Structure formats: C-alpha cells, structure tokens
C-alpha cells in the first residue's frame, strides 16, 4: 500500500514539472542556437532529480534557460556558462561531473572494476591450466592410459 501511495504521489508531483519546454528565444545566428540547445541538454534541472534544463518546465529550469540565453548573447563561452552554474548549484547541475575530491570515485571506479575483472579472469585461466596439466597422480595417469587403450 505504502509503495503504491508513494508512486502516486511521485507521479502527481513529477508530472507537471517534467514536460518538454518550449521557449521562443531568438538568436542572431544558428551557431548560437546550437550552443544554447547543447548547454541546456547537458545541465541538470536543480529541482528535478533526473531531468535536464531542456526537458523541465519547473520554474527554476525556466529561469536558468533564460540565464543561459542571456549569457550566450552576452558572448560568454560555454566554459564560463558551465562555471556560472557550477558555482551556484555544484556538481549536481552538470550531467558530466567534474573530477574533484567528491567525484573521483565516479570517474575511477569503472577503470578499477575493469582491472579487477581482467585480473580475476587471468587468475582463473591460470588455475584451470594448472588443473588440466598437473593434478593427476601417477596412478591416475596409468589408469587413464589403460582406459584409453581399452577404448581402441
């Protein structure tokens, strides 16, 4: 019951905030428009748990799209705009988080797990080779040869 109630609450609350946004922002050229859409794609809406600025209709997302538009027209670079957002909203706002003391584990964990997996595979393969090559006693080997001879 509780789970269902939580789901209903979640659906009701997340519905209106997460429709795609349609703003009519004007840009002097196509290049700036492309940069605008690129930026609002890669910035997360601070209020929604997993929606970018482009996909959210939350008030804060509308305000931040307006800010991105303003800064692009003012001639700021993408890096400056991302810095602006990071300064105010932290790592959360960037879909591609920066490498720092609280995010290093995100970046390094895949490589670490990969090395671990390769190491594990190597150990297993080596063990199997050892098993095949050397675990029969002399008595067993004689018996095996006997069996094979009997077959033919």
């Amino acid at each position: 019951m509780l789970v269902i109630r939580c789901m209903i609450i979640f659906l009701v609350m997340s519905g209106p905030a997460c429709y795609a946004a349609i703003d009519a922002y004007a840009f002097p050229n196509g290049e700036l428009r492309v940069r605008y859409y690129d930026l609002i794609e890669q910035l997360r809406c601070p209020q929604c748990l997993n929606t970018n600025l482009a996909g959210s209709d939350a008030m804060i997302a509308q305000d931040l799209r307006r800010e991105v538009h303003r800064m692009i027209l003012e001639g700021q670079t993408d890096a400056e705009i991302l810095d602006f957002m990071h300064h105010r909203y932290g790592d959360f706002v960037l879909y591609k988080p920066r490498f720092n003391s609280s995010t290093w584990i995100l970046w390094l964990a895949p490589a670490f797990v990969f090395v671990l997996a390769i190491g594990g595979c190597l150990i297993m393969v080596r063990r199997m080779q050892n098993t095949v090559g050397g675990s029969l006693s002399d008595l067993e080997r004689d018996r095996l040869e006997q069996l094979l001879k009997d077959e033919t």
Partner: protein
Amino acid sequence: MMKGPGFLLPLAGFMLLVAILAVGFRLEDPHLLPSQMLDRPLPAFSLPRLSDSSKVWSEKDVYGKVRLLNVWATWCPSCVHEHPELMRISQEEDISVLGINYNDDNAKALAWLKYYGDPFDLNISDHDGQLAIDLGVYGAPETFLVDARGIIRYRHVGVLDQQVWTDVLAPIVAELNQLDREG
C-alpha cells in the same frame, strides 16, 4: 573445483554492492543539494523593495546585523505552512528577518502579507529570480543565515518549523550574535 576462500569473492563483491547501494539510498534526501554558497559573501544585487519599488536595496544594505533571509512566494504552499514560525521568530528572537519575494507578483505578495501578517523587517522583490539563482536557490521556501559581515553561514531548504529553529538555527544564531558583539 576451486580451493581456498576464492570462491567467496563473488559473494563478497555482491555484499559490497548491496552495502554501497544501501548507504547511497539512505544517506540523505536526494532532493537536498549541498549548498555551494556556505561561507561565501552574499552575492551582489540591486533590487527594489517590495513595499516601495522606488527604493533599491543592495547586498551592502544587508550588512551590519545578523539576518535571517527567507525566500518565499505566494505560489508556494509550504510558505503558508512555515509562516507562523517566521512570525514568532520576528517577534521573540534576537534576529532581523528579511524576505526575498521570489518570482512573484508584487500586488499579490503585499496582499498575502496583509492577510497572513508580515514578519519581515523588509522584503526584497526578486521578480525574475535573479538573486535566487545567485544564491543557488531552486525552490521555495529556503532560509539563509547571514552574519553581520554579510557572509552566508547556513542554509535550510524546505519548511522552517519550530523544531528546525530550536535544533538547528537557534544555536547558530546565538553563535553569530556572540561573534557580532565581540566585534
């Protein structure tokens, strides 16, 4: 086939994963973003007063007193919920309460204050959410404690009720007032 504790490795890995996920999901409300603004000075702003839009306030006008900055709006239901506590704080506690009226309509906001009562020494009208963005605000209500030199010392996201005041804010306010008196 495999000897030694090696065969326990996958199980150990699985348990580790379970532990990480359990901690990750319980650690904190994922809606609460860590505040970027702690121990930074108030961002610069220049915004009209809610009651008299010809008078402009800037961050320098906030300096000189320990302040409680409350971000509120008439469209925010939780703001009604926390309002009685703000009224109490403004009357009983040793702190100046300022309002930041966020993305709101001036006339509606003034009517709201008339209806529910006005706990604010002063309200800044942040009509476009500019100051809110500079503060890293992403909803309402939010509450900031600012020391007498204009440095942000605490941020509370969500409803400010008596328990939050007693357990969290009051000790910080006492400390900031103490520091202010010592000069």
